[in-house]
């Protein structure tokens, strides 16, 4: 049974390795949560576990408690970034979360460290937050109380995601590490994520077979512009009511939800090409992604 013994030792080593970057997060009254030392001085945790803004402490892997402040947070991706002064603490070794496949063996690690194991049961299938890129990991493992915000770890002990039970007790999700890395710096710098914004209202439409054949479109549906906000990026780019949006930035748009998921926070200010059918003719329009106006 040498194979099993090797696997067992590998799993224990992976927990030990990941445990060196696991911080306890004490930012709610009852049960603490877990955080990952993502970059030097920055702890990533689940936003929903940070209930207070002041008097937050984190517990280092060596058991010492130190003060932390909220550097930034975003409820829709459920990530908060805490700032700490711990220059000597180890930083997470990030695995290639894009290489994760359904069926891969994974571990969830909590403070102590303590751990649970299971497999990735689906990728991007759940109704997760759009800004995570839609590629959330659904997990067949137990997220024990306090595990939210902790690392999802591969068999080599590398961090491939941040665990979150979200607002439901029945979901075990992880935000892939690549998606977390994309937002950590912006959260730390600005305190929040910009919401990308075009300023169009759309409805789904089916594309007539003749149009699909003529313009070599594989998609069955697209969206039609039914409203253009004044002074919005869409208005500035000259999008008109009745335009049929087929793709945005190279991504096919088949329903209104695709527009939101095709945009990432780091694209605010970037110019993208929106391909439309206007009066039955294709047209490419450059549009500069704006930031959604904040509600007063």
């Amino acid at each position, binding site marked *: *049974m040498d194979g099993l*013994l090797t696997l*067992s*030792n590998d799993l*224990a080593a992976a927990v*030990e390795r990941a445990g060196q970057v696991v911080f306890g997060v004490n930012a709610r009254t009852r049960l603490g949560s877990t955080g990952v030392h993502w970059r030097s001085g920055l702890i990533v945790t689940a936003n929903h576990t940070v209930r207070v803004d002041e008097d937050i402490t984190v517990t280092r892997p060596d058991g010492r408690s130190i003060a932390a402040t909220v550097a930034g947070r975003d409820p829709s991706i459920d990530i908060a970034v805490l700032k700490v002064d711990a220059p000597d603490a180890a930083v997470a070794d990030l695995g290639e979360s894009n290489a994760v496949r359904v069926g891969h063996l994974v*571990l969830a690690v909590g403070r102590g460290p303590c751990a*649970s*194991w299971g497999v990735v049961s689906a990728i991007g299938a759940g109704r997760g937050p759009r800004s995570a890129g839609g590629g959330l990991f659904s997990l067949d493992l137990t997220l*024990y109380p306090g595990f939210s915000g902790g690392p999802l770890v591969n068999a080599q002990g590398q961090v491939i995601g941040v665990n979150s039970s979200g607002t439901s007790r029945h979901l075990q999700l992880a935000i892939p590490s690549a998606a977390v890395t994309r937002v950590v710096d912006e959260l730390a710098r600005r305190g929040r994520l910009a919401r990308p914004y075009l300023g169009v209202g759309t409805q789904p439409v089916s594309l007539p077979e003749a149009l699909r054949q003529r313009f070599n479109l594989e998609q069955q549906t697209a969206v039609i512009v039914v409203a253009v906000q004044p002074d919005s990026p869409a208005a500035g780019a000259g999008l008109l009511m009745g335009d049929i949006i087929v793709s945005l930035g190279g991504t096919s748009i088949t329903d209104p939800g695709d527009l939101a998921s095709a945009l990432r926070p780091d694209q605010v200010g970037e110019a993208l090409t929106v391909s439309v059918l206007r009066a039955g003719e294709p047209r490419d329009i450059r549009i500069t992604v704006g930031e959604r106006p904040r509600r007063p």
Partner: protein
Amino acid sequence: MIELADLADHLRRVTVEVMDGGKSLGAGVLWPRGCVVTNAHVARRSVMEVRLVDGRRLEGRLLARDGSADLALLRVAGAGVPAAPIADSDAARVGALVVAMGHPLGVRGALTAGIIHAIGPITPGGRAWIQADVRLAPGNSGGPLADASGRVMGLNAMVAGALALAIPMAHVERFVRAAGVEPP
């Protein structure tokens, strides 16, 4: 995974079913010198029925019982009864692979697999457990929690939420020695 099947076969041979009046109450682990260790909440009478994997039913006489430690020791009369190899429970590591053998919900000789979640008390100042991320159900009580080599690390005793709680074998050995039976 042929190896997990081998592990299951091996553990089935050293795991018994503890019964009373034909009713299954839990599991037990075969100990040298014809003994069986199980939970006190499984062995509630001075004479219990002990069913081996080959179907033999032996009489198990209660040698010692400690309700607060939730441990009991039975002696069975029978020839050719094997004994379980014991692991050094102090060497347990968080993340290590573990398997549980028992009769959950009446399913005889069922194997469940997982990892060690943590080692220690679940409430401050409480007794130390091997806490395992392994699914247990009624009927697993008294059965073995074993490592990847099939050596018994703990005696499954309780469930807390989704966690399996096992009594470390070091505690079991101490209990058996106090009862006057030498350890293996």
